[in-house]
């Protein structure tokens, strides 16, 4: 087995191959993740996401097929979650100091992911200004793209793990541990995963750093409801990591194992109470 690790997407990304494949395919997989990062980073003012946030209300923009794909998935989850998942909350994170400030927030009334219209599959427009942050979905999406690259290069089994958003592929089954939310250095083995993805949302690291919660309630009616506060952790198991990643936010806000959205995306929800 070979495991390599690089810092990408603001976290540590591990790629493991179970057999002794040509390890240069790992470079291709890291490059793919880097490409997702370059397209979708909020921090990088030159990313495609930043262009969307700066200009989409002024002019239609041609986007990369991957950006198109992630925006469509984000819209689908927004719809199925009745608005609990919405990437149009970037301004909330900026206001809380969790994301860099590229524009003057006070000038705008921002729309949401639902305001993006597809003129063609890769040409989009919006009547409202947007402040999209793909932080709640892009890591999972990047993991899926990396897995695709490994499979295309003939890798039979392995795992890609972007800071806990992970997807295993191939015949081998591997144990998965989740941090104990009350003592995050303690790990709880929750079972094995084979050909599937898992992701977890929790606030233990942001609480430790005394930061505002990064889980934003897009439907908040009052200021105090904007940053969701909780002590448990919320885990989703799904076929693809993009769904696991995004649906943890729905779970953390809904706090309901049986939210119809999970069934729709064939996902399972696991809560670890503090």
């Amino acid at each position, binding site marked *: 087995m070979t*495991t*390599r*690790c*690089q*810092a990408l997407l*603001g*976290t*540590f990304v*591990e790629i*493991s191959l179970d057999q002794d494949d040509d*390890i240069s395919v790992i*470079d291709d997989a890291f490059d793919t993740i880097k490409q997702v990062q370059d397209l979708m980073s909020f921090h990088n003012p030159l990313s495609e996401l930043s262009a969307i946030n700066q200009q989409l209300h002024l002019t239609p923009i041609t986007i990369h097929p991957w950006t198109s794909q992630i925006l469509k998935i984000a819209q689908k989850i927004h719809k199925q979650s009745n608005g609990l998942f919405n990437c149009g909350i970037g301004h909330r994170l900026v206001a809380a100091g969790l994301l860099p400030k590229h524009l003057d927030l006070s000038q705008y009334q921002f729309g949401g992911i639902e305001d993006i219209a597809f003129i063609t599959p890769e040409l989009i427009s919006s009547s409202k200004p947007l402040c999209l942050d793909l932080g709640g979905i892009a*890591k999972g999406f990047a993991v899926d793209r990396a897995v695709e690259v490994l499979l295309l290069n003939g890798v039979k089994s392995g*795992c890609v*793990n972007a*800071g*806990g958003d*992970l997807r*295993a592929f191939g015949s081998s089954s*591997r*144990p*998965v*541990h*989740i*941090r*104990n939310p009350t*003592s*995050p*250095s*303690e*790990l*709880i*083995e*929750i*079972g094995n*995963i084979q050909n599937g993805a*898992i*992701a*977890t*949302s*929790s*606030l*233990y*690291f*942001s609480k*430790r*750093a005394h930061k505002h919660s990064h889980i934003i309630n897009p439907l908040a009616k009052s200021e105090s409801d904007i940053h969701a506060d909780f002590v448990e*952790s919320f*885990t989703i198991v799904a076929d693809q990591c993009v769904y696991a990643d995004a649906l943890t936010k729905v779970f953390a806000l809904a706090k309901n194992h049986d939210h119809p959205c999970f069934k729709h995306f064939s996902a399972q929800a696991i809560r670890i109470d503090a």
Partner: protein
Amino acid sequence: MMSIPIIAQAKIYTSIEQAQKILFPNKQLSKTPIIITDDLQETMRRASSIRHPFQGDRIWKTADGSWLIVDEVVGKHEMITYAVGISPNGSVLGVEILEYVESYGYEVAEAQWRKQFIGKSATDPIKLNQDIQNIGGATLSCKHLSDGVKRVTVLFEAALKAK
């Protein structure tokens, strides 16, 4: 379903030799240790805000003037050993993580948490520093690492470029 908790985590990804092959495939590297003067140490500290002193004995050079530097950053919650490849003109060619050790001192200091070890012996399934794969959980910040890479690029500018 719940099993006895185990403690996160020390991971070894690649050795220095493997990192050399990843960052400089098919190139010969010769070890080129540097004496880090107090002035240089201070310059690097100021530029990167890393206090932990830099060790000058894990530096390699290729025939065409590229460099490989191994360093570590020690944070409040983790220690990361990493390798940086630098081209002759000073651009970063790649960064590979060699080791990641998550500290548990912070929780160990809490009496409540420590209690669970009372009465446990070496045969009990509590394993410190065990290599554990596949941890779900919130994102670990890699801000420290970018500070580390910054100090390596400062080292290049101040001490390696002229060599």
